[in-house]
C-alpha cells in the first residue's frame, strides 16, 4: 500500500548483498534495510538513522522485512534512535521484523519502547 506512492531518494549498496535505501518523500519516511545488520553495516545504519532523526523529529519507519538477523550493536543504534526521538515526542516504527529479529526485540523488551507493525496494518501511528 505504502510503496505505491514513493520514489527512492537515497540508496547505498553495502556489499555482500546488503543495501540501505531511504525514502524521505513519503510520510512518514521509510528506511529499508536488506541483509543482516551486523559488523560494519551497523555504522551505515547509524549514520542514516542519525540523519533521519535530525530531519524528521516526529519519527520514521525502519523496514526490517528483509533483515534476517541483527547484532547487539544494531540494537544499540535502534535504542539510541528511540531515545533521541523521545526528546521530540517522535517515534520509531519497525516494519515487519522477521521471527528471529522479533524474538530478540521481545527478549530485550524493546518491543515495549517502540512500535512494531506488520505490512497489513496502517502506519498512521507515526504523526
Amino acid at each position, binding site marked *: 500500500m505504502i510503496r505505491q506512492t514513493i520514489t527512492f531518494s537515497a540508496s547505498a549498496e553495502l556489499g555482500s548483498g546488503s543495501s540501505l535505501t531511504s525514502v524521505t518523500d513519503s510520510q512518514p519516511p521509510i528506511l529499508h534495510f536488506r541483509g543482516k545488520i551486523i559488523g560494519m553495516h551497523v555504522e551505515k545504519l547509524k549514520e542514516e538513522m542519525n540523519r533521519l532523526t535530525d530531519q524528521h523529529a516526529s519519527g520514521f519507519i525502519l523496514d526490517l522485512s528483509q533483515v534476517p*538477523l541483527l*547484532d*547487539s550493536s544494531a*540494537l*544499540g543504534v535502534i*535504542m*539510541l534512535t528511540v*531515545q533521541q526521538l523521545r526528546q521530540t515526542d517522535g517515534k520509531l516504527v519497525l516494519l515487519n521484523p522477521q521471527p528471529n529479529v522479533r524474538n530478540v526485540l521481545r*527478549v530485550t*523488551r524493546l518491543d515495549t519502547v517502540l512500535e512494531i507493525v506488520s505490512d497489513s496494518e496502517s502506519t498512521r501511528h507515526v504523526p
Partner: protein
Amino acid sequence: MTTEIAHQATILVIDDEVDILDLLEMILEVEGYHVITAGDGSQGLQLAETHQPDLILLDLMMPGMDGYAVVEMLKAKPDLATIPVIMLTALAQANERIQGLTAGAVDYITKPFESQELVLRIESVLSRTLPIKYINPLIGAMGEQFSVDGVEQLASHLQTASAIQQGLLPQTPPHIPGVDIAGYLRSSMSVSGDFYDFIQLDDRRFGLVIADVRGKGIPGALLMVMIRTALRLVSREEERRFGDKASTANVLKRINDLIATDTDPDLFATVVYGVLDADANRLSTETSPTCTFTYANAGHCYPFHLMNTSPTRGWIKDIDSTDAEQVPTPQLESKVDLIEGIHQIRQLNVGGLVLGSFGFATFEEQVIELQPGDALLFYTDGILEAENQNGVLYGERRLAQVFESNYHLSAEGIRQQIEADLLNFCRFEDKCDPPQLQDDLALIVVKMNADQSPPTSIDHTALSRQR
C-alpha cells in the same frame, strides 16, 4: 596484499578537459579502482570532502581555481590533508612541477602520459599511503606514543587487560551443599564483553550473574568491568539493607540507573541476576527444606529450567504447587516445552528491558522452586547465533536437546558437552582446525544434586513429599 588493497581504492580525478577525464576514468576502472571525476577545482574539493578518496589526480592548469590552490585548500583541512595528490602537468612546465611538489603533491605525471606508467605510479603511491590510512585511527588513539615501541606497549596493555579480565572471573564456584555449579567463558577476542560471576552471600545462598555486554574488544570490556563491580557492590548492599526483603529486580534497577545516567543508550548489557537459596525455609515453620531460585532479567536470553520429572527418581514433581507463581507469557506457550525428552525443560521468561539504555526501565522478579535433580542453564546469545557453514543458527532447541541428553552428567560435564556440540556444529567440513566462534560465549550450569541432601535430610524430604 598491498596490491589487493590498492585495487579497491577510490581515486578522485580533477581535470577541466572532458576527454582526459574520460580517458583516465576508463584506464583506472579497468585496473579495478573506483573512480570519481570533477571538472573544476571547487567541485573537486567538494567531492574530496564527501568521498574521502584514497588518492587524487589533479590537473595543475585549470580555469578558476587552479591546481596549486586546490592542493593548498586540501592541506589546510585536517581530514583531507593526508590524501596523496599526484599532479598532471605538461612536459614543458618544469617550474610548475617544482611548485606543485612544494605545495604538497607527492608525485607528478606529464601529459601526454603512458597508461602503464600512470598505473604504476598510482600503485606505488598507494602502496605507501593506504596502510598508513588504515592504521591512522590507531595512531590517533596512541597519541604521541606512536612508534614501534608504542605498538608493542599497546599490545602489552591489551594482554594485561585480558589478564585482569580473566582474573575477574570466579576461579571456583561457590560452595553450597547439594548444589553442583560450573561456569565457563570463551572469548572471541583477547578482551571480552560476556561474563559470569558468583557472589557468595552466606553459607546457603549465592548470587549468580550472566551478562552479555554490547560490543566486543576494549569498549565492551570496560563496560563489563563497570557492571561486574557495580553488581558485586549493589547485591551485597541490597542484602545488608533489606535482608529477606532484598530484591533481585531492585538490584538490576539500581545498576540500570547508574549506567543509564553515565553512558549513551547504545552502551548496554543484557543481564540475568539471580539468588540461589539452598534453604529457603530456614526461617519459617515449614519442616521440609526448599531450594529456590529468585531472579530478574534485563533483556537477556531466557535461562532453561530442566525439571526432574523422571518417575525413576522416586517422586514426581508437583507442577501445580511449584509453579504457582509462574505466569507464562501467552505467546510463549509453544516454547515452554522446548523438547520432548524424559525431562521437561521450560524457559524462565520473566524479563525486562536491557540494562543501561533507559533510565525509566523497571524489572520484575520471579521465584521458582528447585527440586532435587533439577538443573538450570544460563547462556549468552553467542551460542544461539553461532552459524554452521550453511548459515543455519545453533538455536534454542538444539541447546535444550543437548542439555537434556547430558543431564546425567555433572554440571561441568554438561557444560563440556554443550561446548563440544557447539564446536562440532560450527566445524567446517573441509577444515580440521577448531572453528573460530564469531562471538563471545558464556555458560553456567547449576545442578541440584539428587543424591545428596539439599539442606537437611533427603529421607525426610522424600517422606514429606510422598504423604
